[in-house]
């Protein structure tokens, strides 16, 4: 690990051995991080890697359970982001945290408006605001409401405010997520200007090409630990993706265990499915086949699943089930077609926490039957019992609220819910996230068994070795587009990493 700063000086902001624990979970486990003046330092990691937790500690939103923060060599303790601002650490978030209803000038000077005879001197405030923004290349009417401007302009105003107030460290948390190409370029221009002024800039994004475009150095987190801190000049995209995803052991694993496994007829076929911000895709899933999706956070994995299940309406394209076209405009139609969907965030989108295990299991079947054909209680108990046994759901009794179950068991309850409708096609978005190791293996085994029983499955997963080991076929997504399909013997970690990283020609 090389730690020679571009400026060669001591870091402006340094985190040493940061530990953060949520309940039983170590979100950060001894992470070191250093931001140097005159340098853009990118922070990368998949969902759950600890990226946002680290940022919240650096800005004062969270307090670490271990380790220390040093600002220009001196230890600091931050109570809240406001105090962080006072110390010189400014943050700009993805969703602009300014006031949409106030003028640009007011947003820049709120809390320190110039006053005259005790009243706010609006003219002076507006003149100062215009002068300030001119240095960022913005010539706009500072008297207009902030919400009248594009997100890019709002971001630059947010940056100007953060730099004026703080001026040592600038944290950019996914600032480009909702910007178009030209806006990104404009933002980068501003950031380069600030870098030249000697600010230490921490840049969080999930766009790899932007990291290579803007950053001098990258720190990669994985599962709450630091994988590496390296100058970007010495890296290529493949290296970075490998570090973000790679469990080191998986990379000598050649091919999938399921490569060449027999599969049945085409069960579900999607043709030209797409919508705004999502390139159209074609995909056929066979009986007894698991198609997995690989790709980085933000590559459009979840969006594909939502499109398939009708959560987001497709703009064009068609769906065929067993060769017959079906209309899927909303989840109810998807359920009617025999689709099931276990969403990524099961606590929010999946379980009904206060309802019982039994009620959670029968709810999709009941919805499919319609409310006039109520399942009687005996049938409900029988159904719940059958699936609880089949999936080994461990609950003291089936009338307890499902929120009291462990994550793994909750996931199985959602699986049971869909199995109860005798599905043709199951969509699982990150089915193994946030559940412990034992349950993890069980879920993987369950998926495998469902496949053997002839179900067509579409599974999203960030775990690369899991993707490789248990798939018939893999589709790779990048920038909201299906960019590659790997089948049979082609399924290999290196091939996936290459496909995810893509070429480096796609800069903004």
């Amino acid at each position, binding site marked *: 690990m090389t730690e020679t700063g571009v400026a060669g000086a001591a870091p402006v902001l340094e985190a040493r051995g940061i530990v953060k624990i949520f309940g039983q979970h170590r979100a950060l486990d001894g992470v070191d991080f250093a931001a140097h003046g005159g340098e853009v330092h990118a922070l990368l990691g998949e969902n759950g890697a600890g990226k946002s937790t680290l940022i919240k500690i650096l800005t004062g939103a969270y307090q670490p359970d271990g380790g220390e923060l040093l600002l220009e060599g001196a230890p600091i303790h931050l109570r809240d*982001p*406001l105090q962080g*601002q006072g110390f010189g650490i400014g943050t700009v978030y993805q969703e602009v*945290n*300014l*006031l*949409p*209803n*106030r003028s640009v000038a*007011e*947003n820049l000077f*709120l*809390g320190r*408006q110039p*006053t005259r005879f*005790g*009243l*706010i001197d*609006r003219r002076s405030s507006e003149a100062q605001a215009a002068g300030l923004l001119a240095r960022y290349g913005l010539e*706009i*009417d500072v*008297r*207009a*409401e902030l*919400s*009248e*401007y*594009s997100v890019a*302009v709002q971001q630059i105003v947010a940056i100007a*405010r953060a730099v004026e107030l703080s001026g040592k460290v600038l944290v950019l948390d996914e600032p480009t997520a909702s910007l178009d190409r030209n806006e990104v370029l404009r933002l980068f221009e501003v950031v380069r200007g600030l870098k030249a002024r000697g600010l230490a800039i921490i840049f969080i994004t999930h766009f790899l090409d932007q990291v290579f475009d803007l950053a001098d150095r990258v720190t990669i987190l994985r599962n709450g630990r630091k994988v590496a801190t390296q100058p970007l000049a010495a890296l290529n995209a493949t290296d970075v993706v490998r570090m973000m995803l790679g469990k080191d052991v998986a990379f000598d694993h050649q091919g999938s265990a399921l490569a060449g496994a027999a599969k049945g007829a085409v069960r579900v076929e999607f043709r030209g499915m797409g919508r705004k911000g999502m390139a159209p895709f074609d995909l056929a899933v066979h009986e007894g086949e698991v198609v997995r999706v690989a790709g980085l956070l933000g590559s459009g994995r979840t969006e594909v699943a939502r499109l398939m299940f009708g959560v987001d309406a497709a703009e064009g394209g068609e769906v065929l089930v067993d060769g017959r076209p079906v209309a899927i405009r909303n989840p109810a139609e998807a359920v009617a077609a025999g689709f099931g969907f276990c969403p990524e965030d099961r606590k929010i989108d999946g379980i009904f926490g206060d309802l019982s295990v039994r009620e959670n299991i029968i709810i999709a079947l009941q919805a499919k039957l319609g409310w006039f054909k109520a399942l009687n209680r005996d049938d409900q108990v029988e159904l719940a019992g059958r699936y609880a046994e089949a999936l080994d759901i461990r609950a003291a009794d089936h009338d307890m609220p499902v929120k009291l179950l462990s994550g793994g068991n909750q996931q199985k309850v959602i699986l049971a819910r869909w199995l109860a409708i005798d599905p043709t096609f199951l969509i699982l978005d990150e089915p193994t996230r946030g559940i412990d190791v034992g349950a993890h293996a069980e879920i993987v085994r369950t998926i495998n068994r469902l496949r053997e029983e002839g179900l067509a499955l579409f599974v999203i997963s960030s775990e690369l070795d899991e993707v490789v080991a248990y798939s018939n076929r893999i589709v790779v997504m990048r920038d909201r587009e299906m960019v590659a399909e790997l089948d049979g013997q082609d399924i290999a970690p290196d091939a996936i990493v290459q496909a995810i990283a893509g070429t480096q020609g796609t800069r903004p």
Partner: protein
Amino acid sequence: MNRSLRPLLATTLIFLLAYLLAVTQQPAMLSTRVLGNFLTDNAFLGIAAVGMTFVILSGGIDLSVGAVIGFTTVLIAVLIMWLDLHPLLAFAIALGVATGFGAVMGAAIHYLRVPSFIVTLAGMFLARGGASVLSPDSIGIDHAFYKVIQKSYVLLPGGGRLTVVGMIMLAVFAVAILLAHRTRFGSNVYALGGSETSAALMGVPVARTTIGIYALSGFLAGLSGVVFSLYTSAGYSLNALGVELDAIAAVVIGGTLLTGGYGFVAGTFIGVMLQGLVQTYIVFDGTLSSWWTKIVVGALLFMFILLQRLVFRAGPRRT
């Protein structure tokens, strides 16, 4: 043009048109005499509506206003008639109590994280109940000071009278306009209404501002009670029933967004005057039931909420 100016302009335009229409049918309404009565008759509502404007701008609501006015009139009557205090001292005490009451509600809203609707609903019952406990019956106030105040006025050209209570209301509006638009407190109120999360991250003292807003609303409700007391020479626990709703209506008709963040104190003035205009017209007409005031106010309210939807839906964007 600033988007939030549009509802204000619409209100002003509607007021002028309505006045014109009223004058064509009742020419007598075009006189400073009517104008002076406008100000006097609506003074208590206007003052309370100013407090409500700040509350609504910050994204809250204050349902206790009418009850606090009622309570204040009873308290003042008790202090003057039963305890023989000078009215000015009674006013000071009543204003202190009302301000403190508002501040406590503000603190409850902020620290206990209870919606303002709930807290001020509780405040409404407390104040109304408290007033009845002080005295269930109306107490008439007979004091020389009251007579002096009631007889004092500035003669307007054309024979109209600008009374003391009318002047108090105008002064309150003038100060409130400066407070809302030219002080940091005012900026912080708008900031809270825009986004409390952002405001906190930008360093707005959320606790101090929230408490200040409800204390201000309490103070103005108290002042409104003082004016009501001067206006009617009595204290009664059922005074000003439902005035909080008239105040909310005036604020919204005046162009302030009910969800907070956008609006002007001056708009509230026009909102109050518009309600007054409808009332005066009905009195002049003589054949209409006074309930028509409510119907017209209801229709105006509905229209303005629709108008705001249109204006604030997807505003034009500059790049």
